[in-house]
């Protein structure tokens, strides 16, 4: 992507996915005049460019768009605002000067390597997919084992099919969406195998991507071995017990030439670690304040690099905020430091942000540890609200009004999810 890149900016945004683009717009709208977005792909848009299905933008654009449409609109909005957007530009390092200037080192195809300085920096590098190694599935190492996201890129961008007979491990959304996508392209999807007793994907995707095509979803089942010399020729699957250990006495073989992995996403924080940003061991993203500022002053984070989101609209919402605070900071606005710590309580896997300040409205993103129904959220002893059904697959967003925190006098605000553990709720899923 063509674009201008100077040496000095108010705000530099690393990553031009939906998070990075929205952050840049947020910063610009908060008064930052010189804003740069850098992305290592040829063009900005991030993962959205390969997510050709609809489901984006209901909150933000009030219409249902496909990933590329959502991306294109955001790029246009950024360019309209005179934001510099450059592609084929990889940020290979970042640092903080002693005077507080933030630096990124950009390797840009055709332009060499250059250091860019800024008053504030936004980390928006997205996430990567977990690979086979994360599970250590025993067996051979043939071609044909790949992540669902890579398969998505093959099919939607490169015009390649990952194989003919495809098994999918993990019921994450990307895997579910690829099950449908590959079926439409004439592949046979022999089944989706999920370790947990519930799907990790959105219900909508289970219904539309599997149910419609009669693709079986095998819950509480995992792949215990991969076979094939040059190319996958089959896999062995086995049911798992309550301790998630496979019951090898009940294993069976499934013929396939491809195994897609849809077993989770990991925030891409090598750059943040190089910078010295403090990470949360649960989210694997930076610990952030209520202004989405990391442990390093003037360095903000948003989108999937902060914590894995399942809906792009929430990424946008969060990133607009991060950008706004980065823009304000670049303009010299100082906000009082947070003085309330958020503590994930019962059934809560994590909460973002990690700290809050009174006097402002906050959006808290959290994930439950297990499906609960009926569920309720309890914030300290200040608020209790019904949520209906919650599942780890779907992030919960919760707004805390300023007056709520005004009533809070402690230092640690505990958030609990209450409710009865719910079993598998999907009709049609086979054990």
């Amino acid at each position, binding site marked *: 992507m063509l674009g201008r890149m100077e040496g000095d900016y108010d705000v530099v945004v690393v990553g031009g996915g939906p998070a990075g683009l929205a952050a840049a717009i947020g910063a610009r709208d908060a008064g930052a005049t010189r804003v740069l977005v850098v992305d290592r792909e*040829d063009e900005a848009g991030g993962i959205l*460019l390969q997510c*050709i*299905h*609809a*489901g984006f933008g*209901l909150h933000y654009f009030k219409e*249902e*768009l*496909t990933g*590329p*449409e959502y*991306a*294109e609109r955001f790029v246009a909005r950024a360019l309209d605002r005179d934001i510099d957007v450059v592609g084929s530009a990889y940020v290979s390092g970042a640092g903080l000067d002693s005077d507080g200037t933030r630096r990124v080192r950009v390797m840009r195809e055709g332009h060499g390597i250059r250091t860019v300085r800024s008053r504030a920096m936004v980390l928006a590098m997205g996430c990567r997919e977990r690979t086979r190694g994360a599970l250590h599935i025993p067996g051979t190492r043939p071609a044909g084992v790949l992540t669902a996201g890579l398969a998505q890129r093959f*099919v*939607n*961008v*490169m*015009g390649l099919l990952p194989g003919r007979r495809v098994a999918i491990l993990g019921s994450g959304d990307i895997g579910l969406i690829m099950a449908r*996508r590959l079926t*439409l*392209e004439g592949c046979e999807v022999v089944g989706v195998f999920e370790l947990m007793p519930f799907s990790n994907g*959105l*219900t*909508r995707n*289970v*219904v*539309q991507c599997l149910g*419609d095509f009669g693709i079986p979803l095998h819950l509480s089942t995992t792949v215990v071995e991969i076979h094939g010399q040059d190319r996958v020729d089959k896999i062995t699957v086995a049911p798992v017990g309550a301790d998630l250990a496979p019951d090898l006495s009940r294993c069976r073989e499934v013929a396939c030439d491809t195994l897609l992995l849809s077993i989770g996403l990991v925030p891409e924080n090598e750059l943040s670690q190089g910078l010295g940003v403090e990470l949360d061991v649960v989210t694997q993203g930076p610990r952030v304040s209520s202004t989405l500022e990391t442990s390093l002053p003037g360095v903000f984070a948003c989108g999937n690099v902060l914590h894995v989101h399942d*809906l792009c609209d929430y990424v946008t919402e969060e990133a607009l905020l991060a950008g706004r605070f980065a823009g304000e900071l670049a303009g010299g606005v100082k906000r009082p430091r947070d003085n309330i710590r958020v503590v994930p309580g019962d059934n809560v896997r994590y909460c973002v942000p990690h700290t809050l300040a009174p006097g402002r409205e906050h959006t808290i993103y959290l994930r439950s540890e297990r499906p609960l129904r009926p569920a309720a959220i309890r914030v300290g002893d200040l608020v209790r609200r019904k949520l*209906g*059904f919650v599942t780890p697959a*779907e992030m919960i967003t919760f707004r805390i009004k300023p007056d709520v925190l005004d009533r809070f006098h402690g230092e640690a605000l505990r958030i609990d999810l209450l409710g009865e553990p719910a079993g598998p*709720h*999907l*009709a049609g899923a086979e054990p």
Partner: protein
Amino acid sequence: MSPVTTTLTCIACPIGCALRLTHEGRDIVELAGATCDRGAKYAAEELIDPRRQLSTTVAIEGARSARLPVKVTRPVPRDRVLEAVAAIHRLRVRAPVRAGEVLLEALLGEEGLAVVATRSLGRVGP
């Protein structure tokens, strides 16, 4: 005819409410579980005329990528999705193309079902 109860998962929005639908033939007697009106609408549609959003890609020549993502502007009858895809896959596109450009009208012979590009791709090379 006596009422029948079906459970459906609402897919009109990502929340995915579990709907319990009691109906006599095509007449809905009772609907439980919907959080909003779209749930009721979805349940009715799913009963009478189930439809699905459809997006895929088509081959494109002269562009940086090999495939052009496309979508159908309105939902397609669920039972004709594969037929629709086959028709779309027969399309051949040459760059440049703009997002929103109509590539095919009256898909499946149905007025209002248009296939449009969902991204812009410039022309590269000759």
